[in-house]
């Protein structure tokens, strides 16, 4: 039997409040299990204990009670982090370093060097689309670019587990979609992803399983499709249906014991609309630029 990628057992974390007898409970009796190769979403509102849980898993904060493991190793041990890549929420790296220098620094921390490190840096800069910005200092990077260089450093040593704390926080929809695609690509490669988010629509698109935290307590957990399915309802999405056909279906439903809850036109998502609109705008601008260049 293989070890789970992450195992959390009976985890409780209390933060003492100075000059008060009572402590703040960040996490209470938490049990979690993330299987190898899955994308697990830790969801919850701000202050629900998501980041604290991730920090305990990474050995950055010590638990008051309970135990956390990464691939069967106690996560308080430094060597448990050999297999982990981490991207914190809104990361600020050393802004005086260039993108390439940043990856070299983190690579050396993981024991990489020479040609393998150089090749890995090239591979990751291509992966996150920062090849042209490799020589620029991070102080000049946009938020989306910082997030992507953050992802690259998390992947520098080809970890088996990637922990992402609010990976799309503050990133525009296009950047957010790219990060989501990258997470799906990590899953295709067999890399386990544990992410925290309060952006539910995104989590719904990428997570295999989710756990919902509220006030430090795990209130729901399971496979996403099972959690959100409504057992007694069925959706039919029909293309090119004539109005008489739809009327006929509706009357068929009315004649049976079933009940039609809603009849409406299918809609796209606001995100898809935004991406299409901005992509068309970009195309128009680029063809205009090309025309101007040819005229010159």
């Amino acid at each position, binding site marked *: 039997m293989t070890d789970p990628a992450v195992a959390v057992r009976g985890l409780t974390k209390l933060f003492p409040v100075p000059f008060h007898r009572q402590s703040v409970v960040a996490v209470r009796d938490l049990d979690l299990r993330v299987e190898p190769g899955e994308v697990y979403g830790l969801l919850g509102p701000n202050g629900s204990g998501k980041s604290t849980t991730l920090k305990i898993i*990474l050995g950055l904060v010590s638990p008051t009670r309970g135990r956390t493991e990464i691939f069967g190793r106690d996560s308080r041990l430094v060597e448990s982090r050999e297999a982990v890549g981490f991207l914190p929420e809104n990361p600020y790296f050393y802004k005086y370093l260039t993108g390439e220098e940043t990856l070299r620094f983190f690579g050396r921390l993981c024991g*990489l060097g020479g040609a*393998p490190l150089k090749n890995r840096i090239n591979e990751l800069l291509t992966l996150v689309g920062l090849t042209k910005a490799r020589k620029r200092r991070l102080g000049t990077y*946009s938020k*989306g670019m910082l997030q992507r260089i953050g992802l690259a450093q998390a992947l520098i*040593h080809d970890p*088996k587990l990637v922990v992402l704390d609010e990976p799309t926080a503050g990133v525009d929809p296009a950047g957010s979609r790219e990060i989501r695609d990258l997470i799906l*690509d990590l899953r295709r490669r*067999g890399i386990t992803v544990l992410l925290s988010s309060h952006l539910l629509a995104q989590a719904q698109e990428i997570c295999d399983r989710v756990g919902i935290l509220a006030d430090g307590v795990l209130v729901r957990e399971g496979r996403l499709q099972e959690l959100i399915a409504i057992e007694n309802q069925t959706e039919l999405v029909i293309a090119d249906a004539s109005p008489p056909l739809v009327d006929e279906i509706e009357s068929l439903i009315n004649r049976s014991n079933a009940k039609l809850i809603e009849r409406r036109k299918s809609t796209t998502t606001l995100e898809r609309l935004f991406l299409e609109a901005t992509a068309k705008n*970009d195309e128009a601008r680029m063809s205009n630029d090309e025309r101007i260049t040819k005229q010159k």
Partner: protein
Amino acid sequence: MTNDRNDLTLQRFPGRRSPGEGGNASTLAKPYRAFSVGRIGAITVNTLTELTRLKVFYFLLVFALLLIGSSMFMAQLTFQQEFQILKDVSLGAMSIFTSLLAIVATARLIPQDIEDRTIYTILAKPVPRLEYLLGKIAGVLLLLAIGTLVMGAVFFLVLYAREQTLVHVTMRQMAAAPREQIDEALRAVRASAFNSDILPGIVIIYLKACLLAALTLFVSTFATTNIFTIVVMAFIYFIGHLQAIAREYWLQEHSSGWISRVFLAVVALIFPDLQAFNLVDDIVAGTAISLGLFFKTAVLGVFYTTIYTLLAAFVFYGKEL
């Protein structure tokens, strides 16, 4: 803020592997070792790069200007006075600049990393906290070494230039005098310019700065802001220079029982006797620094630096990030 849209598309990873493949470690990195000089070296180089790109070396320019300016001003004094003041100003400035640099550069290292969350990305890699701290302090000590070397070089250059000018002036003025008198005068000029105690004096100045850097690192492990660390260090700096006098006064006024001695030892550990590192006055006065005194002071500097670094590691080990 800039964003290169042409660069935005994320590429696919070339390969694929099955979950759980390749043991517990990553497939690229070398197996984990409990202590790695390579990891410490990476943090050291990074810290040095950070401090260098923050343009902290501008103080060297101020130092050079101070020296050149003061040597021009002193041209009207006798050569003995001139060299005495030049050494006094130079070694004093070196001591103040290196101390200031040690405190200011070290105070920002850990709080800044915590504020920027950079520390999370570093410690989430297989990097023990002790190695992180050793890398940071080594970066500062390297910076101080470069600063001291450059200041020392500028000091020797100015001293040599003034000595050469005075040698030429003396030879011109005594052109008609007998050879023995000229040689005697030149020996006097050279003896006033260089004495063998300058080099050990500079080494002690460097060790004092190392001690202050390690103490600042220790304070910064429990401080929440840079300002707090700098204010605490300013206090310690002044108390450290005054404590020798206070100790003498205390021992004169009170009995020298074991309780007093333990108390004074604890005070000496918290507030190091910085006056013990002040050999500038002896060098300027031309008093020879004995080898014994040099080694004793050097060992004291290394001892304090080690103790404070270990104390910093102890506090940092249990720190919640």
